[in-house]
């Protein structure tokens, strides 16, 4: 992984509907988790749901995060539906 990218991961319903469990995206300075979500959503199709009505949860480096959470090159960013364990 280059220093100038982030790994994006998808889980559960999102993983299935987007048809992928991870991809590598370029990471520009000043990036946030929310920017990444918008960028992915703009692809249209199933991707549009990332900024749709259904809530999307965010983790950065395996800790719960918010759209405003900053993202650095090398980070792991995950998007997933609300959790339903237990």
């Amino acid at each position, binding site marked *: 992984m280059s220093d100038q990218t982030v790994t994006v*991961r998808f*889980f*559960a*319903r999102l*993983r*299935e509907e987007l048809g992928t469990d991870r991809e590598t995206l370029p990471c520009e300075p000043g990036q946030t988790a929310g920017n990444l979500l918008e960028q992915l959503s703009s692809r249209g199709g199933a991707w549009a749901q990332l900024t749709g009505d259904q809530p999307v949860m965010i*983790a950065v480096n*395996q*800790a*719960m995060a918010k759209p405003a959470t900053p993202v650095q090159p090398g980070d792991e960013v*995950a998007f*997933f*539906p*609300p*959790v*339903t*364990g*237990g």
Partner: protein
Amino acid sequence: MEEVRIGEADFDPAAEYESLRDSGSGTGAIATFTGLVRDSGDLQGVTGLYLEHYPGMTEQVISDLIRQARERWDVRRVKVIHRVGTLRLSDQIVFVGVASAHRGDAFAVCQFLMDVLKTSAPFWKKELTESGEHWVAQKDSDLAVGGRWEG
């Protein structure tokens, strides 16, 4: 003994109980909770569950919840086990066991961990039925119950 275990393997509540009981002569109370796959979920005719998780993050989140519990209550020993993969009706899904000096703390920690695990640990449940499969939606009631431990 590790406090958190996530995996496909089944677990033995009796062995976990013995480990909790073996936590010193100051232990006066052991509370346990076990969750099982039951036959009425969002859809009728559930035949099983598929459980997905976020490896690594799950363990970190649960360890952090245990740390929070230790700050709020007197806890001698805790064990949290959660299975993933495909489970059938009546299979064991989750175990939370707590050894404490007093029953109030043991009950509180056991219930706290189950409640907050449901709203903050990255697990996702898919119900398997005879007519197809279906990702389970988060319940407002779980969110409300998880929220009562805040502040």
